[in-house]
């Protein structure tokens, strides 16, 4: 059988989900705590923009005519999730880059300005820095669209595993948010987040322990949400949709994608992390670095989920 979309698309879907999901949770946490965690959206964007750029490169590589990729931006066809998605991706990257530039420009002390080329550049940008607030909101909306559109794109097709299945966008969104949170926790716990913050002129503050604890609880809840949606997705295809749908989900449950699905998506991506997280919340850290383990596994699980759904969906 011929697969039109292969590993490039699998990785792209994963990266887009992680990037968008990370900013989504970061922005939410910052807003809910009324701006107590300003560095979270920053870190999320510092990570997210490169991920999105790499993802976009993979998208172009996947094309049959790579040099024609610019055709995508000659029009917006709202009815086509791919057209909408291309623009969302472009705008998200642009907004992200602008926000990073603005944050960076704010990191210079007033007196440092005009002393070097870089600081000269920063001085030009800095006056616009007050736009960061509105840009963050725009980025949030774009992030929601970004994590939603990939699932919408697949469900607006006629492949039995995807076509018309309303729970597929829900599944991809749940997974994106879960993996986005996992990335943030991983980055913060390893101190890499502080490093990023410092690099871009932040205070390099530690995130308080109770915030980290809350993030851990949130990760657990998000994992359960994803599991519930996944079960719903499977049940829908297996029992309540067409014969073709049942055959399609069979590819994941017992067919060529079963190892990726049960091993990668379920065990590695959901069950083991949930067990680890549950244990650590009870105060019983089962392994040294179990947070590192559980977040990494969640991230991997997101990759396996995209692989199972994208590749498996082309096998029927």
């Amino acid at each position, binding site marked *: *059988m*011929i*697969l*039109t979309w292969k590993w490039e698309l699998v990785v792209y879907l994963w990266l887009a989900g992680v990037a968008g999901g990370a900013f*989504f949770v970061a922005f*939410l946490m910052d807003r*809910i*705590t*009324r*701006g*107590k965690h300003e560095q979270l959206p920053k870190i999320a964007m510092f990570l997210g923009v490169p991920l999105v750029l790499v993802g976009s490169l993979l998208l172009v590589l*996947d*094309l*049959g*005519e790579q040099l*024609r*990729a610019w*055709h*995508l931006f*000659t*029009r917006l*066809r709202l*009815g*086509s*999730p*791919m*057209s909408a998605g*291309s623009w969302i991706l472009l705008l998200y990257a642009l907004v992200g880059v602008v926000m990073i530039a603005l944050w960076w420009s704010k990191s210079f002390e007033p007196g440092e300005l005009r002393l070097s080329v870089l600081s000269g550049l920063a001085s030009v940008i800095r006056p616009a820095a007050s736009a960061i607030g509105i840009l963050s909101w725009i980025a949030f909306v774009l992030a*929601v*669209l970004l*994590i*939603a*559109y990939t*699932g*919408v*794109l*697949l*469900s*607006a*097709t*006629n*492949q039995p595993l*995807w*076509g*018309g299945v309303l*729970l597929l*966008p*829900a599944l991809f*969104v*749940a997974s994106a*948010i879960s993996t986005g949170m996992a990335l943030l926790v991983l980055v913060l716990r390893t101190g890499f987040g502080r490093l990023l913050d410092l690099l871009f002129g932040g205070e390099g503050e530690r995130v308080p322990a*109770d*915030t980290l604890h*809350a*993030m851990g*609880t*949130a990760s657990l*809840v*998000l994992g359960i*949400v994803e599991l519930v949606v996944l079960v719903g997705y499977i049940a829908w295809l297996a029992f309540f949709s067409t014969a073709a749908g049942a055959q399609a989900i069979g590819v994941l449950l017992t067919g060529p994608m079963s190892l990726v699905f049960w091993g990668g998506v379920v065990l590695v991506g959901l069950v083991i992390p949930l067990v680890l997280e549950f244990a650590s919340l009870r105060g019983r850290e089962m392994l040294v670095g179990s947070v590192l383990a559980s977040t990494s596994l969640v991230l991997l699980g997101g990759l396996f989920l995209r692989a199972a759904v994208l590749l498996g969906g082309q096998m029927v």
Partner: protein
Amino acid sequence: MANAMLIDESRCMGCRGCQVACKQWNDNPAELTENWGSYENPPELSGITWTKVKFTEKVEGDQVKWLFLTQGCMHCTEASCEAVCPTGAIQHHGQYVLVDQDWCIGCGYCVAACPFDAIHSVFETEAGGEQKATAKKCTFCVDRTSNGLLPACVKTCPSGALSWGDRSDMIATGKDRVAALQAGGYARANLYGEDQLGGLHRLYVLADEPSAYGLPEAPRHATSNVAGQWLSGILTAGIVAAVPFWLVFKRQRAEEAQGGGAER
């Protein structure tokens, strides 16, 4: 006055004349194939195979049926490929749905969107490797029909199963044929393509129900519920945002409200 193709599958003998004529006219190379337990080859349509015959064996009691389906682009009035194409490369030209080969970027979305698996951007090379290019499919031989000729497959068909003409004429002929089949004992004979997806331009006289041939009974337009799908995604984000985060972070908010601890 749109033209359509009528394919009388009760008269098709699966000879593959259409398959080879299409290859010859469109200069499409052959794929490397092996017999996988059927006369059918290649096993699927691809970027270089735009029409082929699908062979299905059906057993009913002690009767065997060998059903042949001449696959290819249906040139749907409501074309899913056209709807999802992000660059607008796929457009209706009269009744023909055509891919602008200079504009297509080969993204492959139309491939997934087609309810009939009729368009492809990847093909296997004769050496056995794979190549990705622009999306390609049956064009109804628009280069021939716009010059007063019949599509290559129609011209070649030795049994007269394929015909080409004004769509309403084709429908009338098809219905007559269905009536004759029903009178001859084929109770489930039907005409496929009259109303599906706003009307298909590849019409079939089938001796058995569409699913027996592997055709979808009620083909679905790819973006028929795209608004609902966006809503599903966004709502999930909303629910995930509202419930877990609010629950988890409400202690911090409470603290904040009490004015304790938080610095700005």
